[in-house]
């Protein structure tokens, strides 16, 4: 090791020690470390996303089931009070189905998010890695980078714009190359926010994504319109109502091919999502909610045409 490298290494080591010391001191102060733990039970009418016409599926695999799930998030903010911040987050999600256990899912998501606040404008650069496991088998992994800018024009109005760059890997075996779902995704997001009272807001967001897949069946565009509202109930401050509607248009590029001589048109999906969540705050850090979700995916390819209802309850702790 050369003589000039020793001081550089010492400076780097000193810098690292200072950063670790600062992080440790901040963690002890209790302002930087957070946890969000939730557990719940759902009834899911269509766990397997079985088509409306069961004959469209290769085999009938069962449809509805109960679902128990838990979700823990741990994150750490290096400097939450300052303009510069770095957030490191770990998200763990797992569900169990008593009958359709082949759909039991496990997810790990790691996120690193530097951010900078300048006046009323916040810049984010979140980068995340997700690992998804279905029935104890590696199902998919993906990397996601979303540079984002949010500007608050006034107490009530804010606007966001971001770009999503993602790389998705599907790890399950495929029968024909056209089925390959691995690919790249790119697309912008534009969002409008109206913060009408503390804890209450309306969010309108439109996003476009282009997905270039390894298999021709999965090349296509995705446009989604989301309207989401959170409303703390007047006279009942412990209750909050959250409702959203999401409309998606997903035209695919190529004629669908299933490996047989059957001719299919270009796949076109129209997706309607609706959700309603009523939350009750037992304590400041403990909430309970009941929720209902509806997903209706209308597709001209019968295999992808399904409806799904989910209703359940959840207990959640945040600190």
């Amino acid at each position, binding site marked *: 090791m050369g003589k000039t490298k020793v001081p550089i290494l010492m400076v780097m080591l000193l810098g690292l020690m200072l950063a670790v010391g600062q992080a440790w001191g901040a963690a002890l102060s209790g302002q930087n470390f957070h946890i969000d733990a939730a557990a719940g039970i759902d009834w899911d*009418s269509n766990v397997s996303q079985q088509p409306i016409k069961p004959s469209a599926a290769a085999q009938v695999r069962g449809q509805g089931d109960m679902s128990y799930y838990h979700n823990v998030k741990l994150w750490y903010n290096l400097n939450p009070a300052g303009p510069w911040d770095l957030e490191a987050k770990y998200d763990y999600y797992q569900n169990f189905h008593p009958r359709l256990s*082949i759909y039991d899912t496990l997810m790990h998501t790691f996120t690193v998010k530097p951010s900078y606040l300048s006046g009323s404008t916040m810049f984010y650069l979140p980068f995340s890695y997700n690992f998804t496991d279905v029935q104890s088998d590696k199902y998919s992994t993906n990397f996601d980078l979303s540079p984002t800018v949010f500007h608050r*024009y006034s107490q009530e109005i804010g606007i966001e714009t971001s770009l999503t760059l993602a790389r998705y890997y599907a790890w*399950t075996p495929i029968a024909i190359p056209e089925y390959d779902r691995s690919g790249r995704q790119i697309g912008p997001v534009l969002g409008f926010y109206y913060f009408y009272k503390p804890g209450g807001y309306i969010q309108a967001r439109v996003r476009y994504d282009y997905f270039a897949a390894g298999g021709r069946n999965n090349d296509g565009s995705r446009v989604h319109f989301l309207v989401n509202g*959170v409303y703390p109930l007047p006279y009942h401050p412990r209750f909050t109502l959250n409702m959203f509607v999401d409309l998606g248009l997903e035209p695919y590029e190529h004629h669908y091919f299933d490996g047989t001589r059957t001719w299919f048109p270009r796949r076109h999906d129209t997706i309607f999502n609706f*959700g309603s969540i009523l939350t009750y705050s037992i304590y400041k850090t403990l909430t309970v909610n009941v929720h209902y979700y509806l997903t209706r995916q209308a597709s001209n390819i019968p295999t992808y045409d399904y409806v799904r209802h989910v209703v359940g309850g959840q207990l959640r702790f945040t600190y």
Partner: protein
Amino acid sequence: MRKILLSLVVFIITVALVGPMGPSPSWATEPTSPQAAPDTQRFKPEPPGQALKKANEDAERYSKVPPPGGKGSGAESKKSAPQTEEKK
């Protein structure tokens, strides 16, 4: 608090009636395939409400950004804002 307990009791009874302890409804008795893997072409493992969760997380984070001329810091806003997002 009584209402919460009452709601909990109603919920437990409902689960008992329609769940494993009660009579089996049609969706619980339908046949399942011997195939031991999901149809990976159709199945999306993202839990329902996933998009909403992300949207609410973003909105709550943005609510902490101070308005022009505003004095509120992110930490203060965070303490006062109730947690409303759906976590899955």
